Structures are given as C-alpha cells and as structure tokens.
C-alpha cells in the first residue's frame, strides 16, 4: 500500500546513480531509518541502479514507494530496464557470477541488504527488480 505519491527517476549515467543515492538516502531518513538501515538500502539501490547501466541496456528508471502494512512502514524501490534480460535468474543471483566487468555481487549482495527482493525478467524484454526494506 503506497503511503504517498510514487516518485521515479531515470538512470542513464553514473551521475544519475549518484543523484539517486542521495534521493533514496533522504527518503530513508525521512521515514526514520537509522544510519545502518539507510546505508543498507542506499547501497542495495546503488548496486541495482548500476546494474541497469552495465547490463540493462544502459537505460532505465527507479521508482520509489513508501509502503506500509499494519505494523510498520518501509521503502520499496523498483528498478526497471528494457535491456537484454536475464536468462538464468538463479545463476545471476549467485555471488561471483557476472556477465560484465563487475565483481558479480550486485544481485546477490543487494538481496542480502533488504527484507524483500523480487525479480522478473524475460530475455529480450528487460528486467524488473523490486526491493523492500522495512523499518
């Protein structure tokens, strides 16, 4: 359940990733995440936004929703690209797996930094990853 209006930013360059980090940090702070919680969600967001640049056809966007259930509030971030997609998601989630020049920590690592991690991808159509961290 979104609490407030959804916001979205484009990811086209590494400068966009830097800006997105500051934006996520401000929202995480705004709903009262402590410093470690803020750092975790911002770092996860950074990995996934960078993924868009390196593997997602270089262009996509990040959507931010403030979410709530009966007990708590959280931050949900959705990363979407129209890149080549991921053929084998299970393999892509393993540490050390990379098809690019990175360390292969992006997906598996960011999954460990959040409470919920959903991924949907079709080869040739793109990838959508949603992460949620609850307060």
């Amino acid at each position, binding site marked *: 359940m979104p609490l407030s209006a959804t916001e979205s930013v484009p990811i086209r360059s590494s*400068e966009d990733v830097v800006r997105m980090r500051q934006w996520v940090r401000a929202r995480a702070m705004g709903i009262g995440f402590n410093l*470690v919680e803020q*750092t*975790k969600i911002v*770092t996860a967001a950074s990995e996934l936004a*960078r993924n868009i640049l390196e593997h997602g056809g270089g262009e996509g966007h990040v959507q931010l929703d403030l979410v709530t259930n009966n007990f708590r509030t959280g931050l949900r971030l959705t990363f979407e690209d129209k890149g080549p997609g991921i053929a084998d998601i299970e393999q892509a989630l393993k540490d050390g797996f990379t098809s690019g020049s*990175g*360390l292969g*920590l992006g997906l598996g690592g960011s999954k460990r*930094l959040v409470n919920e991690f959903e991924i949907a991808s079709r080869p040739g159509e793109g990838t959508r990853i949603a992460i949620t961290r609850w307060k």
Partner: protein
Amino acid sequence: MERIPILKMGEFLLITIQVDMHDRLAMTLQNDVTDMIVKTHARGVMIDISMLDVVDSFIGRMLGSIASMSRILDAETVVVGMQPAVAITLVELGLSLTGVRTALNVDKGMELLRSSIERKEANGAVVRD
C-alpha cells in the same frame, strides 16, 4: 574538470574522498594516483574515506584497483576512516576488499604505512633514490 586532490606528505600521498564517486571521477583518480606515484616516488598511498556514507561494489573495486596499481609501482596503500555503518553494509554485501589494507584513522594508517615500508627495506627490497 572535476577531480579529487592528491596531497604529497613526505614520501606518502594523501587522498581524501569527499564527494560521491561516479565513473569518470574514479577513472581520473586512478590515473592521477599512478602518475603521482611515479612523479614523486611516493612509497605509500593513504585514502581517507571517512566522508563516504556509501561504499558500493563499484567504489570497492576502485579502491582495490588503486591498491593493486600502487603495489606494482612499489607503493603501499591503506584505506582509512571507514564509517561503521559502511563496514557493516560491506560485509553483508559480500565485499571483503581483498588486497586492500585498512586502518581506523589517519594516524594508524600512517603507522601501518611506515612499518610496512620499513619491513620491505629490511627484507632487502631495492631502496629507491
């Protein structure tokens, strides 16, 4: 052009990263550090990241590259001042910063650089002029 300053302190180079890194800035820094090592014959490089509130795998990789390049140029690298929240996050992310030496603060980093250079010289490594 935007770049990160590198200060020369005796035989060491001191770099304080105070801005959020993006690709171009990271590449420029790598080039500048290696140029400065060669130009100044620096024996050690200290990178202060106390102002960084996020270290993702991209920045981690950059720190690792600088350490490797410096080592090949016979200079030791130490990363100092990592914020506790950043350390906690790095471990969960799975980034162990292999090959990058760390110290709590600038003073301890300086000690570490000095002692590792002394050890190198005691082991008969070639002393440069």
